[in-house]
């Protein structure tokens, strides 16, 4: 098989074919015009055939460019002198006037042919250029689309990496948090079975430890279940009128052992309205905040729980006398699995508080407490009918 011609020689071949076609068309037109005018040559002035013979030259110029126009002009001049200039049927020319006519014809034909050929060439080049521009534009559009696709792909990959990262953080965090109480339970129970003869007091203390750690595991599992409900969008509060004082007292009593190293002061103002909330979910918020306070409160310090009414909302806060939360960490602390520096918690409790409170249309936050520790607060809508009128 023959190799493909380089582009330049391909273009030259096309030009040669066009010139040949121009010459053929030009000559055919010259012959046709001459043939058509032949019967009337004695009636016509010499200017008529000369003018009409310019037409084939123009046609040849359009089709075959300047070369074809030249050949056609020469052929036209020859036929013109042969056919329409007396003495007829010979190339010889008798009068000086006819020489001038022939020369003028040739000049006009060549100039016109050249101008037309150049114009045709320019038009073709312009068409080529606009075609080129259109192609470039299309290519550009394709590239834009392609780039958008790649960008989307990159975003998707980045997102997946973030999800992966979060997921493995979750696994690390959860397995650590499940294992810590489990390790204590296993160590203590095996020791109770095979260890020394403990005094009744020591034995009770160890058994209490096992109970507390099991309780802690249970709370962790509850938090994890809530988290999965939050992630699947199934956290729909089932709201009713809830008495905060009863809920908080009950929760403090249930967490008595967890809070045994601190004093818990619950000071709710009298006449606090009921709140409009899902009891179980709000109870979990209070539980998580108390557990958080218990974790960070120094021994023998005070954990204060209080509330106040403000514009249709009830604001509740839990204060401890611990180290507080640095300002830089105050937003991040509510993100899942973001344990604060030095914290041994799973980092899901506060994230769950935020999700639950926000699902109730409230806000959650942390500030400094007057004693220098942390004050975790949230707002929750008051039950409309119970708001004391003033």
């Amino acid at each position, binding site marked *: 098989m023959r190799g493909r011609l380089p582009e330049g020689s391909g273009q030259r071949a096309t030009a040669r074919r066009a010139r040949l076609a121009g010459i053929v068309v030009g000559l055919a037109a010259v012959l046709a015009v001459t043939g058509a005018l032949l019967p009337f040559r004695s009636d016509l002035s010499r200017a008529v055939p000369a003018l009409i013979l310019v037409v084939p030259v123009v046609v040849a110029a359009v089709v075959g460019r300047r070369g074809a126009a030249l050949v056609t002009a020469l052929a036209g001049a020859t036929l013109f002198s042969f056919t329409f200039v007396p003495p007829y049927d010979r190339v010889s020319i008798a009068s000086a006037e006819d020489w001038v006519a022939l020369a003028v014809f040739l000049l006009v034909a060549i100039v016109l042919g050249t101008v037309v050929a150049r114009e045709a060439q320019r038009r073709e080049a312009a068409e080529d250029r606009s075609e080129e521009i259109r192609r470039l534009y299309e290519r550009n559009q394709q590239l834009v689309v392609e780039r958008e696709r790649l960008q989307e792909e990159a975003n998707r990959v980045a997102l997946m990496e973030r999800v992966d990262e979060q997921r493995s953080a979750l696994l690390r965090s959860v397995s650590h948090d499940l*294992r810590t109480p489990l*390790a204590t339970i*296993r160590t203590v129970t095996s*020791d109770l079975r095979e260890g020394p003869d403990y005094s009744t007091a*020591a034995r009770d203390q*160890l058994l209490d*430890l096992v109970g507390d*750690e099991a309780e802690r595991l249970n709370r962790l599992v509850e938090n994890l279940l809530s988290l999965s409900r939050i992630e699947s969008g199934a956290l729909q509060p089932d709201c009713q009128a809830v008495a905060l004082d009863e809920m908080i007292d009950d929760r403090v009593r249930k967490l008595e052992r967890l809070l045994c190293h601190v004093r818990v002061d619950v000071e709710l103002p009298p006449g606090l309205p009921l709140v409009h909330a899902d009891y179980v979910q709000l109870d979990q918020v209070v539980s998580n905040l108390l557990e958080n306070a218990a974790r960070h409160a120094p021994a023998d310090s005070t954990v204060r729980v209080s509330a106040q009414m403000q514009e249709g909302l009830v604001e509740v806060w839990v204060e401890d006398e611990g180290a507080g939360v640095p300002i830089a960490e105050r937003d991040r602390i509510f993100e899942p699995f973001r344990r604060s520096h030095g914290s*041994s918690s799973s980092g899901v409790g506060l994230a769950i508080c935020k999700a639950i409170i926000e699902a109730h249309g409230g806000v959650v936050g942390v500030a400094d407490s007057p004693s220098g520790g942390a004050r975790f607060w949230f707002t929750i809508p008051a039950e409309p009918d119970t708001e004391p009128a003033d």
Partner: protein
Amino acid sequence: MEPLLVIEDESAMSTALRTALEARGYQVKTEETGEGALAAMVDAPPALVILDLGLPDMDGIDLCRVIRSRSTVPIIVVTADGAEGRKVAALDVGADDYVTKPFSMRELEARVRVGLRHREAREHLADAAVLQVGDLVVDVTHHWVTVGQQLVELTAKEFDFLAVLARNPGRVLTHGTILAEAWGAEGAGHVEYLRVYARSLRKKLSDDRANPRIVTEPGVGYRLVARQ
């Protein structure tokens, strides 16, 4: 005896350790933070330190290094399961022994006993020419080893390996430490040397499988204990 110092931030585990060790006749002090522990050690030097590597305020490895720079007190580190690297790092910066959570109190107590038993001996052994660990005697000057007065013939490398262990009785030495001290730079990474030499040493010392002098700490290293 001075108290044991338990450095553990998990209050449940800390209480469990205190209760269990006190019931076994030890005095126990507990600290929740690295800072607190360092302060407590200045006030009352403990007989032995039990250190949980996952502390809130300070990296456990760093704390281990600091304690070792100030004292020869035996340190037993407590690690979470699956943290092999942390364990080895702690041993390399001076911890004597380790337990992995969840551990049994019996196991911990055994390690506490080993740590306390060898504590005194170790202080004198560091520069000694004759190292005695139970009935095993390693004479560094004369390159002699005897077990219950019986001379044991060892190759040069076997002797070096045993001498490194005997200088640190009761202490877990990591593969890296033993290779560096007995083989130098050329030993780096060749854990298989240790397996070969430990096997031949055990044979020559007539070690009992159930109660060996040279104890393998799987994946971590070896230690030499006095035969009970």
